[in-house]
């Protein structure tokens, strides 16, 4: 086994026992940070699939947070609490949205692709804001999905482990996908689209399917976010969140399987430390932690082109 994978496995092992650690050291809050890291990693891993392998810079990935989340939220508000019903509906809605956005945006390239995916995400954002029956701008308190007798999502540790298991599944799937026939086509099309077309690949179809798969995982993350806070609101899919997801992917290392996980850990660790630190300097400054984070990101972009994943790799070599 390569040392690089060792680091990733060690990290996963650590995440696997996180609830035990936070309980032992009585750091409940850390568990909630951990939960967020794990959930965001799921979304970032899926974004990395289309952005890293596919070269498609989607600036609307947080829309899937919203769609997955609101599907759960709306069903819950309508009295359907059963997770076996909620989750498939939420996933289907996310995939449908991905197919729709993909079908239109994949006809464009470069900056236009970025703008169109952003525009569609904003559409969902304003749509959710306009849902007066479901809280409008203020959002909606919901009760968590029920998996009768199987899982109680209200239990923080149980919920964390569920998220962690889903992250492992996501990593496993995306790792396999990267080296599959499908993944090879996706990477080939990023490297040289014209060539792939000339070889006989209907590139558009492959990219569309990639978007739908990524949409499903994005929606899954949305379902989990909704269940984490028992709350959904338009804010969960603001364009800032889409930007954060891109930042996490870039920070971790574009196209590296575990990159998004590293990225998410660093991102949230910085948020959690910079915020209180700035607040300590001056009350209220914490909100602007990204002003400090921004230049840091630039430094990382300049000195570690491949993100955290490449830093770890260099250590091995």
């Amino acid at each position, binding site marked *: 086994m390569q040392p690089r994978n060792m680091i990733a496995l060690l990290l996963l092992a650590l995440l696997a026992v996180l609830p035990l650690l936070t309980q032992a050291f009585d750091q409940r809050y850390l568990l909630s940070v951990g939960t967020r890291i794990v959930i965001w990693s799921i979304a970032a891993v899926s974004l990395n699939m289309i952005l890293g392998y596919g070269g498609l810079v989607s600036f609307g990935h947080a829309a899937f947070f919203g769609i997955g989340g609101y599907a759960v939220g709306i069903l819950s508000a309508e009295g359907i609490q059963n997770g076996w019903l909620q989750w498939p509906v939420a996933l289907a809605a996310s995939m449908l949205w991905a197919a729709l956005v993909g079908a239109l945006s994949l006809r464009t390239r470069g900056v236009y692709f970025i703008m169109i995916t952003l525009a569609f995400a904003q559409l969902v954002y304003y749509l959710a804001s306009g849902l007066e029956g479901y809280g409008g701008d203020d959002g909606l308190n919901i009760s968590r999905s029920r998996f009768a007798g199987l899982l109680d999502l209200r239990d923080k540790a149980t919920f964390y482990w569920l998220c962690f298991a889903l992250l492992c599944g996501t990593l496993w799937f995306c790792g396999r996908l990267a080296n599959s026939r499908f993944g090879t086509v996706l990477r*080939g099309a990023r490297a040289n689209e014209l060539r792939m077309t000339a070889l*006989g690949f209907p590139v558009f179809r492959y990219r569309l399917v990639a978007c739908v798969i990524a949409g499903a995982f994005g929606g899954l993350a949305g379902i989990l976010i909704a269940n984490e806070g028992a709350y959904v609101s338009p804010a969960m899919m603001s364009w800032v969140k889409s930007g954060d997801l891109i930042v996490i992917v870039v920070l971790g290392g574009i196209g590296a399987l575990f990159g998004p996980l590293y990225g998410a850990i660093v991102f949230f660790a910085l948020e959690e430390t910079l915020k209180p630190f700035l607040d300590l300097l001056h009350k209220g400054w914490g909100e602007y932690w990204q002003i400090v984070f921004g230049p840091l990101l630039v430094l990382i972009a300049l000195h570690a082109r491949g993100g955290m994943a490449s830093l770890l790799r260099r250590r091995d070599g």
Partner: protein
Amino acid sequence: MVEPLLSTDRLVKHFGGLLATDDVSIDVRPGEIHALIGPNGAGKTTLVGQLTGLLAPDSGTIRFAGRDITRLPTHARVRLGLGRSFQITSVLREFSALDNVALAVQAHQGHSFRFLADVRRDRALRTAAQGGLDAVGLGARAAMPAAALSHGEQRQLEIAMALAGEPKLLLLDEPTAGMGVEESQRMVETLRGLKRSCGMLLIEHDMDAVFALADRITVLVYGRVLFCGTPDEIRRHPEVRQAYLGEDGA
């Protein structure tokens, strides 16, 4: 008379005010090497673009292997057996030579909506790809990234990729462009060896290569077919000699 493998009927293509393809009707028979020559900007690449489906003609039709493909998308034409190489070398630079050909083989084996099995452990795929590399003399280069291959080797790699699709017809846009004499000769040999297995539409500026390979030659000037005939007829044709070969002929 055999039905031609590929034929165009009165193809026309404008770029704004520029008439790049002017009423072009040509055909390629099975197993034939049909050379397309003409000065820079004559519209040769533009014609290939329309044949492959990258460019849509303004009017006219294209038939291939017995069916009208004028409106077919590129990937569907490739599936029917229309392979190509590019005037400007086009390979996947970060991929190894073997992976380049493996992708071509993969394209030929039907859809690639397979998400879990590892291509690197796909014996059949690897073997077929290695065979393709061997056939163009790149067998020993399999593990090298395509970008690290010499220019001539990259062009050979393109041929291997085109051949992996088992094409009935190869569209070759200046396969020897930018090559040294030796590399050129190797390419000519490679193409000669392929002649029986597929037809070719060969765009080429190197007249030695053209006369060594072609069964028929079409001369294109300002988007129009000036003349079409055997190499001997071309050599004798006064207008062609003047317009293209220069007064001293070939």
